[in-house]
């Protein structure tokens, strides 16, 4: 298991990740359910109707006011969390060379996935992972048992990026009742992914997009280079100094469009850069807003 997970998990201890909306009915958990029940946490009174359980009657109120009311309370349910991880070739950036320790987008994506899984698992939520990688697709079923986070961390550490599978079909296999977190650089089949996510969002699934952006993509190296796309053979362009401004403008517009797409379908969007601490990135994702560690395209 990567050494960066330990400090990150320590820093995330005590962090909770409540659902933004009431979740559907399910086993008892930490999230507010759309189902009203008879739990100890009082919510409101309602006039007794024929068929109600007499045990829900507030007998004291009936004695004082001679009116029959039923005590209502919100039910608590579990929320299954699925993390969909993009392990395409574009995530293997920047390439590691020499002794310069640089975090790749794939490493940052794995750290954020483990962090989110740990936070969700701390609320006793089942956590599952879907990850594309070089040799195919990894599926770790959602579990609540102890050691799930460790299993996820070890499984992700064993994966190598460079996969070619699209994300949209994998997203389609996830249940609509689960909270879905997509960690990607949005450079693959993003449009199809958004369309599929919109279907899940319409079904009630909370959607979260974590857009991993490398710092080297924002600030290109100096000099003239021959830029080559790792996922599209033959896509090569000469990167002049004069083309940097146009590149920065196009990349910013792309990130804004991606953020708009996710928010338009009811999801949340968080841009995570590779030069921030993973724990701060996880907190930003949970908060659903951008903090100090990350910034939106508009801020640039």
């Amino acid at each position: 298991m990567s050494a960066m997970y330990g400090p990150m998990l320590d820093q995330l201890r005590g962090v909770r990740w409540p659902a933004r909306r009431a979740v559907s009915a399910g086993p008892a958990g930490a999230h507010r359910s759309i189902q009203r029940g008879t739990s100890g946490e009082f919510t409101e009174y309602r006039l007794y109707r024929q068929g109600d359980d007499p045990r829900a009657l507030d007998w004291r109120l009936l004695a004082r006011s001679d009116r029959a009311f039923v005590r209502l309370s919100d039910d608590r349910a579990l929320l299954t969390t699925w993390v969909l991880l993009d392990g395409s070739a574009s995530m293997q950036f920047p390439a590691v060379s020499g002794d310069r320790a640089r975090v790749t987008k794939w490493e940052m994506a794995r750290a954020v996935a483990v962090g989110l899984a740990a936070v969700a698992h701390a609320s006793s939520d089942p956590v599952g992972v879907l990850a594309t990688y070089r040799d195919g697709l990894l599926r770790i079923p959602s579990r609540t048992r102890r050691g799930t986070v460790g299993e996820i961390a070890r499984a992700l550490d064993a994966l190598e990026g460079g996969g070619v599978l699209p994300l949209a079909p994998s997203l389609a296999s996830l249940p609509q009742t689960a909270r879905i977190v997509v960690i990607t650089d949005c450079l693959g089949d993003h449009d199809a992914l958004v369309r599929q996510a919109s279907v899940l969002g319409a079904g009630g699934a909370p959607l979260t997009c974590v857009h991993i952006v490398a710092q080297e993509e924002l600030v290109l190296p100096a000099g003239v280079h021959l830029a080559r796309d790792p996922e599209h053979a033959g896509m090569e362009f000469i990167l002049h100094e004069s083309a940097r401004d146009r590149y920065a403008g196009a990349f910013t517009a792309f990130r804004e469009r991606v953020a708009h797409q996710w928010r338009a379908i009811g999801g949340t969007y968080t841009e995570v850069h590779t030069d921030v601490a993973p724990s701060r990135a996880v907190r930003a994702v949970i908060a659903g807003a951008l903090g100090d560690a990350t910034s939106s395209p508009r801020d640039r």
Partner: protein
Amino acid sequence: MLSFAIPWVFGVAVAAAAVIALLHLLSVHRPPLLVLPTTRFVSAGDARAIARRSRPNDLVLLLLRVVALLAAGAALAGVRFAPAPATRGELVVADLSRRADSIAIAQSLPHVATNDGRDSARIDDRRFVWVPLQADVGAALPAALHAAAQWRANDPRLRRIALRVLVPSRVRSVDGWRAWREQWPGAVSVIADDHPTADSVTDKSSRGSTVRIVGGDEDDVVAAAFALYGATGAPGAVVVRDSGARDAAPAGGEAITIEWPVSGVPSRWERLSSPDTVYGVATREQALIGQFVRFARAPGVQAERDGGRAIAWWTDGAAAVVERPLPEGCVREVGIRVSNTGDLLLSANAAGLLASLRAPCGLPFMTPAVIATLAGSGALETGAEQDSLADASYFLPPGESMRGSQTLGSVMLLLALVALLLETVRRRDRSGTRGSAVT
């Protein structure tokens, strides 16, 4: 000054270096590769742009490559130091008997003796070699080879050597010429040295044309043989088969007297106490094979003193026929005893012996026809000009001729290796720098 054993190899190296330099200057700079997932956001208007720029920082690399190529080419081409200026020499081989006339001979020879096809090659130096050529004119060639080797060893500037042979008017043999001719690596100029005219030769040797037999039996096989092989136009001769009969016979004015006693013992010869058996007689490159009984031995020392010479030999090397000069013609003593009962002397193989006996007296003349025969042997020419001179380095010992070039060639080879090593190191440094800047 540098020279090359194989100049075209160095020319190839120079051409290759020029091509490399040209390609270097015309090369198109390819910017370092940057693997960028967001390449799609680079403006498409910049696609396929080529950055052509001068690369002064690569001049050291280019210099190392050119130096390595030229040094290797020089080493392979056999580079060597050549003292300047190169000279041309001429060896003049003349008969030893003409040594007293060396000054006159030297003055009669032109200094522009050769022509290599482009311009006249002036002779810078000339040396004479005096060799007895009357025995065999071929002796001129080994003597010339020896003299050329000594000359080249003593004079490193000597580049080309011309050879001129002054052939005396009479020589005994020209067979050695053909054997040695291929050893001289160039053309040879053969000049007739005071040759008699063809008319004088004819006048002197053609007095009479018949063979008169004096003495002997009526069915003498010698008489029959001369009658059978009496060539038209041959000089007249008298064959004395009986000493007593010669004195009694009237003189016919023949220039050649052949003393061929029936007993096989000429008057001046030493009779052997015990005759032995010999199985052949050789003359004029023909051998007459048969079983002969030898009864006498030629007086070798005395014959030489009298100016005599052998013109036919037994197969064991002893003289079988000796010619002695006379004030008018010559006498030939034949120590061969032949039997009248046999037809050995009538066979075709005896024609050589009989022709030698009827040949003109004295040494054979080097007539223009003979010189023309020599001229037909290889590159020989009879005129004063030839197309090629011998390379003086040919006469150096193999080890010595390559010693200088090996030393300088080794230095050049080492220089090429060092340049290649430096080029490799510098190229790797450049690759490493470029790679770290890109990723």
